[in-house]
């Protein structure tokens, strides 16, 4: 399985297309970008400050990718996350999954985002008031 995990101090780059090695094999590339909203817990914010424990986050994410690949025909995963201040309207996370067909790609991507929130050491460390 092709995989890429990157953490960014600055704006997430534009979404690249389906990774070259799985072209022809995969018909589906399901992607998700999570953006910071203008309110957090009911209060207007300027942004969120994220923290990541990179070495362990990469290890946990890789374990999740492997567990997903055992349950779905996942052939490529890309996962990016911002660290530091992410302002309202900016993307904090980008994740994408390739598989032969659409339904499995959606299911695996939705599950990856759920798993992210169980045990991957990434934190909304602080909400910066507007």
């Amino acid at each position, binding site marked *: 399985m092709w995989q890429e995990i990157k953490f960014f101090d600055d704006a997430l780059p534009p979404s690249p297309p389906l990774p070259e090695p799985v072209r022809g094999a995969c018909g589906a590339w399901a992607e998700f970008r*999570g953006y910071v909203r203008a309110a957090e817990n009911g209060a207007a914010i300027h942004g969120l400050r*994220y*923290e*990541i*424990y990179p*070495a*362990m*986050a990469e*290890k946990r994410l890789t374990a999740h990718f492997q567990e997903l690949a055992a349950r779905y025909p996942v052939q490529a995963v890309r996962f990016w*996350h911002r660290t530091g201040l992410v302002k309202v309207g900016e993307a*904090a*996370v980008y994740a994408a999954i390739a598989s032969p067909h659409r339904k499995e790609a959606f299911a695996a991507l939705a599950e990856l*985002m759920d798993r*992210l*929130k*169980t*045990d*991957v*050491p*990434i*934190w*909304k*460390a*602080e909400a910066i008031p507007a």
Partner: protein
Amino acid sequence: MKILYFAHVAKALGRREDDLEVAEPLTTDALWERLLALRPALAQYRATLHLARNNDYARPGDTFANSDIVALLPPVSGG
């Protein structure tokens, strides 16, 4: 032993890491005793923190040696 702090815990302690000299491997309870002696302010977070040892969540029965990297992990909230 290197100790790593994150998020609100790092903010409350005013630091992101500590070095702890341990003569022999410590159980989880013994490690917490040492941590609380070093940083009493950790007490209020203890119930919500998970310990990680060398980038894996610690399991019951794990011991923590002087060469280990130990992370005190608040509940995660990525995405």
